[in-house]
């Protein structure tokens, strides 16, 4: 027996969800503004689709996804069946709140892996050597050592 195709309307676990369509990763937590912004971004991208029919289909898909998510009575029917990885985080919070205040909780152990420090790697250009010679030299004076902060404050008062 092969994989069965269901009437999508009646499958609460159908993918892509309206969140997937709009590219909202943390879907159930998305605000109205997030939804509107995501839809605008996706519409901008959709405008570049060369095939007219394909473009119209994508636009319709985006509009329907947005409309469903902006109607709370429709969105709840979707959200009720979504079980995100957040469930453990939320349960953790609930359990954590039950502990007495003086009990030491393994905070670092719990929160550390959930919120890794940002490494800012994404701000670096992929090939920095390509930029050599393209940037104008800055007409600024640099010092190896910073000025003494106490003296800075005095200078400000003098002015």
């Amino acid at each position, binding site marked *: *027996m*092969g*994989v*069965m*195709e*269901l*009437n999508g*309307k*009646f*499958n*609460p*676990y159908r993918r892509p969800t309206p969140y997937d369509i709009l590219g909202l*990763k*943390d879907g159930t937590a998305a*605000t*109205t*503004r997030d939804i509107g912004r995501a839809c605008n971004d996706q519409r901008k991208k959709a405008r570049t689709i060369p095939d007219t029919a394909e473009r119209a289909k994508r636009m319709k898909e985006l509009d329907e996804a947005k409309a469903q998510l*902006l109607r*709370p*009575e429709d969105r*709840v*029917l979707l*959200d*009720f*069946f*979504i*079980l*995100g*990885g*957040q*469930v*453990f*985080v*939320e*349960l*953790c919070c*609930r*359990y*954590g709140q039950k*502990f007495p205040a003086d*009990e030491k*909780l*393994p905070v670092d*152990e*719990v929160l*550390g*892996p*959930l919120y890794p420090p940002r490494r800012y790697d994404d701000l670096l250009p992929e090939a920095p050597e390509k930029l050599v010679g393209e940037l104008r030299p800055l007409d600024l004076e640099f010092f190896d050592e910073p000025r003494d902060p106490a003296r800075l404050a005095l200078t400000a008062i003098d002015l």
Partner: protein
Amino acid sequence: MRHFHRLAAAAAERGGGSADLEETDLDLLAELDRESDRVDPLLVRSLMIAYHRRACELALSGNHRGAQRYWDRAHEFWDQRIHKKTAFWGEYVASYNQGQQRQLQLGPDELQRRIGRRMAGLCVSICGGLIEEQEMQAARPYWEMACAVGGSDLAREVFGEAVNLDAVLSRLDPNRNPAAIYDLYRFLYDTIERKEVYEKIMLEMAYRQAVRELNRDNPGDFIRHIVQAGEFNANFRVLAEKLRRLGNAVISAIVACFNANALARTFREANRELDDEEALFSVVWVYANSIDSVAGGINTWTVPRIMDQILVMVYKDLLKK
């Protein structure tokens, strides 16, 4: 503290994005629920959805046996912990609305009706998919689950929307495969709704199959299909009883005698437009009805002696039509 550690480990592993829960996650949630001193709507909903989704995945991959225990657990949660539980819905709506710009205005009753409709709809939809694949035996439990979740009226209402019967029927050729159509309507009649139109179609299909089996000289199945037709028509009920009295050997003798009969052969060649299969059926019908009027009854010896006489009666009738 032990639970907190395990939850923390699960949370760290899953992070905020992954929605795929492992079997161990389900066990952890179930354990938390068992040992929880008060009802936690988040935990209850998570468990029900986790079981429900796993059941759906298994069912869609064709593993209905494996899916059953997850369906049972999910529906048990729905029945006993969620459906008509005012506290659950009150807390769910309150936490859902927290921080939302657009508030959910649905009352708990309406919300649970709509969620129940979606759950019943999934079962009906799988039931429809299995009907399309002619897996009637596997389809039945899904219908029963849909009725249990949303009630039979709701399940019937959703069935009309979720299952395209015309598309299913268009794939079945009544001439080549009457048994498949009969089985489909039998399922619809026994399981979904007792419609009169289903009765008529089943009667027609049972009759067609009976005629086919008779022409294949298969008296056992011929009688079986006449019995099926008898469920919806009194004349066929009487005929079935008389055919049983005639017995398989006599019916086989009638078929052999009909095929070898010179008069029948001549008539066949002269009237090619007439349905020969129907003629044989009518002949057997007359034999069956004559069972009490022929002195000494009808047996394999008496069959050839009265064949010509019966053929004349039958052909006269056929020509009149």
